[in-house]
């Protein structure tokens, strides 16, 4: 324990500092009241930790997309600060966060290609895609369709992950590609967690990860029941890593439900019943975010001298940015204030 306090003392202080600068409930209340994106930006500039980055921007002219970019840049800034304070193997684990964004960016490219459009580097920003470890952005951008993109990824890990789809007309579709990439990412997390982390670090991270995987799997089964009417093998194939807190039997029963209603009845009996309490499926994703928010706050408090605090802070930061984006979208599309509130995870 003592050694953890020494090991994480500087980063823990840093994280606590950044944690205290996260938006409060009060802030969200005020933000929802704003009438335009510019007012939101104005508020963020004057009242919150985003002031530094927004100080160079003319908020009266800001566009929703630009604001999003500023927010993401701030996130990157925070990561770099965190990164600077970490030493040793743990750093390797924290680095995986970049991989996540890299995968998200890749998914965006696939989405663009599948929708038949071409990639425009200037309009879509791929902040996290960098020329590294075999990735050559210019080469990726030449791709005309998903198949070519996979071929152009040759030399990267993503090629190995996706190579089965390269020559398969039956299975090459956006859904499969995205699922495969997600599965790969969680596989990577679990593998590295075991390899790079120890003791308290490992316990905390493992807890969060398995819970996250479980909930995502449950949401997936629910969706497959409600919208896709898939056979059980497909449902199993598209689930994330099977490192579950739930017994295998329970999962099997959930998959074997005949429809979404039966699924909900069973899901409410699991440890994740909180998420499926209301029968309004729109709120499940929000419930999930809310659940993760509470979990992360808990870890921040109880395990402040472990990597758990770092990971939790990063999750919280992501949730915060998601919240702000939800608010600006809500304002932009004139959604009722009460409804916007639902989309905010606090």
């Amino acid at each position: 324990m003592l050694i953890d306090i020494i090991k994480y003392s500087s980063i823990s202080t840093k994280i606590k500092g950044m944690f205290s600068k996260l938006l409060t409930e009060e802030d969200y209340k005020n933000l929802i009241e704003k009438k335009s994106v510019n007012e939101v930006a104005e508020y963020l500039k004057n009242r919150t930790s985003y002031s530094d980055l927004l100080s160079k921007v003319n908020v009266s002219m800001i566009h929703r997309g630009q604001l999003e970019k500023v927010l993401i840049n701030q996130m990157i800034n925070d990561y770099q600060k965190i990164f600077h304070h970490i030493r040793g193997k743990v750093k390797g684990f924290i680095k995986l966060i970049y991989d996540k964004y890299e995968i998200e960016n890749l998914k965006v490219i696939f989405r663009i290609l599948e929708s038949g459009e071409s990639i425009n580097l200037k309009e879509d920003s791929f902040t996290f895609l960098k020329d590294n470890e075999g990735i050559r952005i210019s080469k990726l951008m030449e791709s005309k369709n998903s198949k070519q993109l996979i071929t152009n990824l040759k030399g990267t890990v993503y090629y190995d992950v996706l190579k089965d789809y390269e020559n398969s007309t039956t299975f090459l579709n956006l859904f499969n590609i995205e699922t495969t990439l997600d599965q790969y990412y969680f596989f990577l997390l679990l593998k590295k967690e075991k390899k790079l982390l120890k003791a308290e670090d490992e316990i905390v991270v493992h807890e969060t990860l398995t819970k996250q995987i479980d909930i995502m799997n449950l949401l997936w089964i629910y969706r497959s029941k409600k919208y896709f009417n898939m056979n059980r093998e497909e449902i199993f194939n598209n689930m994330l890593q099977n490192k579950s807190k739930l017994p295998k039997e329970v999962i099997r029963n959930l998959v074997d439900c005949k429809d979404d209603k039966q699924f909900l009845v069973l899901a409410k009996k699991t440890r994740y019943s909180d998420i499926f309490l209301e029968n309004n499926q729109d709120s499940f994703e929000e419930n999930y975010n809310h659940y993760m928010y509470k979990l992360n706050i808990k870890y921040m408090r109880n395990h402040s001298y472990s990597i758990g605090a770092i990971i939790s802070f990063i999750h919280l930061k992501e949730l915060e940015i998601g919240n702000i984006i939800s608010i600006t979208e809500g304002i932009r599309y004139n959604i009722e204030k009460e409804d916007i509130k639902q989309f905010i995870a606090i």
Partner: protein
Amino acid sequence: MSVLKMKLVNIAGPIKKFDEIVLKHIINNDVHLENTNLVLDSIDELIPFMDENIYDSKLFTIEDLNKYFNANVKKLSKKRIVELLEQTNRVHTIDKYIEKTKERIQEHNRAINSYHNSKNEKIQIRNQMMPIIDLDVDIDYLFNLEFIKFRFGKLSVENYRKLKRYLGDLNVVLITNQIEEETVWISYFMPAGIAHKIDGIFESLFFERIKLAGGIKGTPKQVQEMLVKEIDELNTKIEKENSAFSKYIESERVSFQKIYTELSYLQRVDEIKVYAAHTLESFYIMGWVSEQKALEIKKTLSSDLEMMFVEEDASDVQGAKPPTKLKNKKFIAPYEILIHLYGLPEYNTIDPTSFVAITYTLMFGIMFGDVGQGFIFLLAGLFFKFIKKQPIGLIGINIGIVSMIFGGLYGSIFGNEDIIKPLWTSPLHSINTILILSVGMGVFLIITALIINIINKIRTKDYGELFFNKNGLAGFVLYIGAIIFVVYFIITGKPIDSILLMVLFFGIPIVVMFFEKQLTQKLIKAKKKHEEKPSFVEAFFELFEALLGFLSNTISFVRVGAFALNHAGLSLAVWSLYNMSSSAGGKILVVVLGNILIIGLEGLIVGIQSLRLQYYEMFSRFFRTNGRKFVSQNIGKNN
């Protein structure tokens, strides 16, 4: 012997000659480049080269290919550089060569891969046959049953894991043949009626089926024999391909090395552009060189009317500090490593290497005086110097010799003081003499350090520190005064009774040192405007520390004598043990082990202590470690 005198050379000429100048005069030519854009940032017409280095990616590729060739970059001779410059389409040549080589290597890899894959498949089929090897049934018949279908093939570990999730619920019998790092070989049986559905599930997991029935005829035994033959054939094919490939590598190595070397040079030329600047037609580049080198460059460039060459003395240059390059005679050059451990001296100050070479060796010898053990050090030094070819061996030789000399003076050989008569005295018999002499040596060395510092301060024109600092003239006078007073007292037995001398040697220096900052600001033009206001408390403690420092640094040299005693004492212990042990074997063991212990432990401690004395007692007085390292643009190994 010293820190090398530097000149800043500025070269300007038409842009088309940039490559030539860099290749001929900068690369491998001991030039420390200075970033022109930073030094001359006030001249608007000069702009930095902004083009991307086109050779970077090529070099990257060729280094990748070099995994197969293991070639080294060689230094190009003058003639070869001229040849390189004369090639008109060198980029094209390099590109074509890289492309060709890459093609050939890929071809080889493809061939080897395909051979390995089919070999692996055949091995898997053979393993598959093992359990049914004694069946006297035609394989073809076995695999075309009416009600049961059979499949054999592989899938990825990842998908195998997925399959396991719901395998129990499928009407399938799965046999896992072999689990490899990435793939799993399996076979499965299923009722013919649902074969379509099951195959669909396996297909969605990217199961790669390998058809056995196709080319295979006969009983399992016959098939087995056939497979073994085919595997053998594949093995010979692989061998053939490998030997053909290594022949290719051998035949191509020379030209690969040539291209690799040329590319490295060209890439460096482009990299050096970062240091240069240009106008519309001319380039401009500057760097530090030794005076001699400056003359050489001047001579060759003066005949070229297109080129402009200007050299400046280090003292005339504004905005750039000259780098430090130590130049010492071969004999003491290895001691530079002790200097680098501490830091790099400022340009224009005295290079302490020769000083260290003498004092370090001497102190080691005094502390570790022994004819036999010194001889061991001498042998070790010779070994490193001449067999391992490491220059540091020279230090070993030197300390070995000096240790032997002092061993002779002390009369000690392998710690034994009875064999030879001391030429001077044994440390344990004249403890006081040894200790007083070592303090005496300390006094001498500290005075030397102060003198070096005074010379340095004159050279760097730091007059404030020269006159008023504890390591400047003020400290020097104080220290000399203290020494005179003490020596006088020891010799005559009564203190010097002169107010005048007291004021001269103690009063004035102490007052001057106390008011060092004020005096510097008042009398010598203050360099920095916003210097913090000196505080009297701080000045008092600094003065106190300085006085204490002189005392403790001097006494610190007692350790030179103390370790000589220590060494003798340890030796005495070893030889006492020798006398106590009864058997001849025991005696030899004690002497050998004891000497190993003394050489290992005592040698280490003495080595460290000598260094410690250098760093703390002397370097801290005159050595300012803010020198810049001299970095030249070197490529390749000597032929």
